[in-house]
């Protein structure tokens, strides 16, 4: 169980996330939607420890982790994929994933073993590459991948971490239409597992509608709506502030 | 021994921070060998071969170059180096290979002091000689002296020797500044504060070599308190700054216009024909070392074995541009004259001209013997 209480962060005068209290249960996928700049990514950053909260608390399984840094939270089971692709550019695709597997196995401080002797880690990395359809690109440098493949690798790294809480920040942005299902299937499988807590930031409403068990809406840093997908999407905040639809003309845009 | 040759290695700062000094020594050495052998470069029927080695001012390099010179190049004896640090590192090598090292122009006292071994001779003056001669020049009743020196061994040893030699004048303050000092205002203030209320003649004695320009303290208008500056001699480019201090007194190791003897006349003439300029400080040193070597070899009739040479050179006197020098038996330091000077400004020269006040003979300087024996 992941829980935030009055989580707040202020940048100078600007309150990017304002007293957001919310709990996320294992086995559910919660979509977080809101206009650009609503504070979704910042909310993620606060949870995973990339930035320090001005006020409020984050608890994981009842333990207060607010004072811990990003590495400790990652070890505690918070996994994060980034909105703007964030890889190890001059390492190979396989090594990008293997490093995540190695982090998961806690083997990083071993100074004396030869890395390739940990066959289990290598094998596991290849499995993950298979699941994100990058198996044939394992030996390329991450930097030379086209944008869409980089997004897939970003997701692959998260998968390799096998966290308890998965945080996806627009995983399919810039991914070509035929590749999107690969990622969506992955997320579906995670859901099917029933033990993982999944948070998803996504602007494509059809994806949100299809995958989520619950939607929360952030607007100007505040939590303004929370509930089951159909109700929330139909609510006036979402319709106007987010989708930009006037009640009269009902045309849907996002793919 | 390689046939009819006497191989001399000259290890010096051909490059590096002391490049300009090292080159003077080399010029002087070659001129001296030429002069001493009457242009034949032969002594005792053997040809003199000079092998140049560049220590770049690095002690470790100097050390290995000297070893290579003795072992690989089969040098019979070595001369050099420019820097005292390099010299100190080289001393044990001479002992290991049991060959002579004639130190020139490195000045540190410890070379002929506690780091000395019997293979070491030195034609160059040591710090004590420098300091003592300056003390002799300045040491008058009623004079108050404060010293300004670089804060490391060279400066501190110099001041110590100076203090030991001063008998009648009063020393009120010792100012040590880091070698890297660029702004001397703070030090000057402290010196002024210490001196300004003293009676009589007030002198700041400066011991400084290398980067930084301590004479800038004069810009703080020391005259208003009647404070004078004194320092030893230096190479000609550095003595350009002396132009601002007409009447300044001190004692120097060498200035081409001062010694009157045939050797010096020959060197000055030769230098003018070859370079259209007068010889400098270290040219004289290099020349002296050549004179020492050739004099000794003449006596041994070309036998360059260390044991023979040591026996010959201990107590040996030889002629140099600075007059007669003598290797003292105890520590192999060459005893030599120093010159008490007073600066005169002459527009014909780019530097302040040191005029001889009087020659300070070796006998007037009680240069301590510092090697443990």
């Amino acid at each position: 169980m992941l829980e935030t209480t009055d989580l707040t962060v202020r940048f100078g005068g600007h309150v990017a996330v304002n007293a957001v209290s919310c709990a996320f249960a294992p086995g559910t996928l919660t979509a977080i939607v809101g206009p650009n700049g609503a504070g979704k990514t910042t909310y993620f950053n606060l949870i995973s420890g990339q930035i320090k909260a001005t006020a409020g608390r984050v608890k994981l399984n009842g333990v207060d982790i607010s004072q811990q840094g990003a590495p400790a939270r990652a070890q505690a089971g918070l996994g994060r994929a980034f909105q703007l692709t964030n890889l190890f550019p001059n390492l190979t695709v396989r090594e990008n994933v293997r490093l995540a597997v190695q982090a998961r196995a806690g083997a990083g401080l071993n100074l004396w073993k030869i890395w390739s002797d940990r066959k289990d880690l290598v094998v596991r990395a290849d499995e993950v590459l298979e699941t994100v359809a990058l198996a044939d690109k394992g030996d390329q440098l991450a930097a030379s991948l086209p944008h869409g493949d980089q997004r897939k690798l970003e997701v692959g790294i998260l998968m390799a971490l096998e966290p308890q809480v998965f945080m996806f920040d627009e995983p399919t942005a810039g991914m070509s239409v035929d590749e999107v299902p690969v990622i969506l299937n992955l997320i579906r499988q995670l859901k099917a597992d029933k033990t993982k807590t999944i948070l998803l930031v996504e602007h494509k409403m059809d994806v949100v509608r299809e995958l989520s068990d619950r939607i929360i809406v952030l607007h100007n840093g505040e939590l303004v709506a929370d509930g089951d997908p159909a109700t929330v999407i139909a609510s006036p905040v979402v319709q106007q502030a987010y989708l930009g639809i006037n009640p009269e003309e009902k045309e849907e845009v996002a793919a | 021994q390689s046939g009819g040759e006497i191989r001399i290695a000259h290890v010096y700062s051909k490059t590096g921070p002391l490049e300009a000094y090292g080159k003077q020594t080399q010029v002087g050495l070659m001129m001296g060998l030429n002069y001493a052998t009457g242009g034949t470069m032969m002594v005792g029927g053997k040809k003199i071969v000079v092998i140049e080695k560049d220590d770049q001012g690095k002690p470790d390099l100097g050390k290995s170059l000297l070893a290579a010179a003795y072992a690989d190049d089969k040098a019979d004896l070595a001369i050099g180096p420019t820097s005292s640090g390099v010299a100190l590192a080289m001393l044990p090598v001479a002992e290991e290979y049991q060959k002579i090292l004639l130190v020139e122009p490195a000045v540190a006292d410890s070379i002929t002091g506690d780091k000395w071994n019997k293979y070491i001779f030195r034609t160059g003056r040591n710090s004590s000689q420098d300091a003592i001669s300056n003390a002799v020049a300045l040491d008058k009743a009623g004079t108050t002296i404060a010293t300004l020196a670089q804060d490391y061994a060279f400066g501190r040893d110099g001041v110590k020797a100076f203090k030991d030699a001063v008998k009648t004048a009063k020393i009120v303050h010792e100012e040590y500044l880091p070698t890297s000092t660029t702004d001397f205002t703070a030090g000057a203030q402290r010196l002024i504060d210490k001196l300004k209320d003293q009676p009589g003649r007030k002198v700041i004695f400066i011991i400084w070599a290398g980067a930084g320009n301590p004479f800038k303290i004069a810009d703080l208008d020391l005259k208003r308190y009647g404070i004078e500056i004194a320092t030893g001699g230096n190479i000609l480019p550095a003595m350009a700054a002396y132009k601002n201090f007409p009447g300044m007194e001190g004692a120097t190791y060498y200035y081409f216009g001062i010694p009157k003897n045939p050797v010096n006349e020959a060197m000055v003439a030769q230098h003018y024909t070859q370079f259209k300029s007068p010889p400098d400080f270290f040219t004289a040193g290099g020349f002296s070392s050549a004179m020492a070597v050739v004099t000794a070899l003449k006596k041994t009739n070309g036998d360059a074995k260390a044991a023979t040479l040591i026996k010959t050179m201990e107590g040996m006197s030889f002629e140099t541009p600075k007059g007669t020098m003598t290797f003292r038996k105890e520590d192999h330091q060459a005893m030599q004259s120093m010159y008490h000077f007073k600066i005169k400004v002459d527009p014909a020269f780019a530097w302040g001209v040191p005029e001889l006040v009087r020659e300070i003979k070796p006998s007037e300087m009680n240069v301590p013997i510092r090697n443990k024996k």
Partner: protein
Amino acid sequence: MSLFKDMDWKPMALVPLLALAALPAVGSPSTWLTLTVAGLAMGMIVFIIASGLTLVFGLMDVLNFGHGVFIALGAFVATTVLGSMNAFTTADSLWTNLLALLPAMLVAMAVAGALGLVFERFIIRPVYGMHLKQILITMGGMIIGEEMIKVIWGPEQIPLPLPEGLRGSLLIGDAAVEKYRIVAVLVGAAVFAAMVWTLNRTKVGLLIRAGVQDREMVESLGYRIRRLFVGVFVAGSALAGLGGVMWGLYQQNVVPQMGAQVNVLIFIVIIIGGLGSTLGALIGALLVGLMANYTGFLVPKVALFSNIALMVTILLWRPQGVYPVTSR
């Protein structure tokens, strides 16, 4: 414009604060005045020699370890120029003396700037954006430059006497202020004003900062970033040349190694300043100048480490320097 709006005054207050804090420690007001004025003027000279590097490092993000060679070059050029102007430098009139400095400065700047052009083309251009290689290649350039100076001017130290009228001090009560330092303050102030104006009143500063982050994008916006970079580098080198003249005249002699000798000092100054802030560099330089004199007077041993201690203290307070310009 933006310079004075929401200005951050704290770093500027450091300079007077340091001076005031030193007053009781030094004791005598006249000594304090001498030290303070000398320190501030020294700071100005240091600012002049560091100003070019602020441009090159702060704007272009080029770690130019060879900056010193331009300083040395400027100084050597000055020996040649002033050497040929004996009549002016030894004249009785202060104005004639000052007039001699002008061509020396201009020629030094021109020569250093010209060398900067060559340097940019052959040394810097292949390594934009690669700090480590910049360090190496510019050190290489510095070594070559220093050796060339030895080839041209010889390895010896060359005297660079001050013109007659600038020697000695002005007396304010019991405190002595060297005349030359007053000249330095004026030159430094002019350099500062010129830099602030160019960087804040024109687009040049913005463009270069943008170019460092994303060269391709600046070109895609239609700017000839390359020419701009060359221009800045040449300006930085010319400033170093000017700095060399000032520094050489201060020392009254020049040696080929003088550039290398000031390298660490100027890096400390621009780090304190925040890597690229002109005002920051000025404050850094003034602090360094003052600190050297106060510690030199109070505890000379510590003076050796005063710059480093100052830098560390400042970085503890503001880890990016007093005026962080960029977040590289």
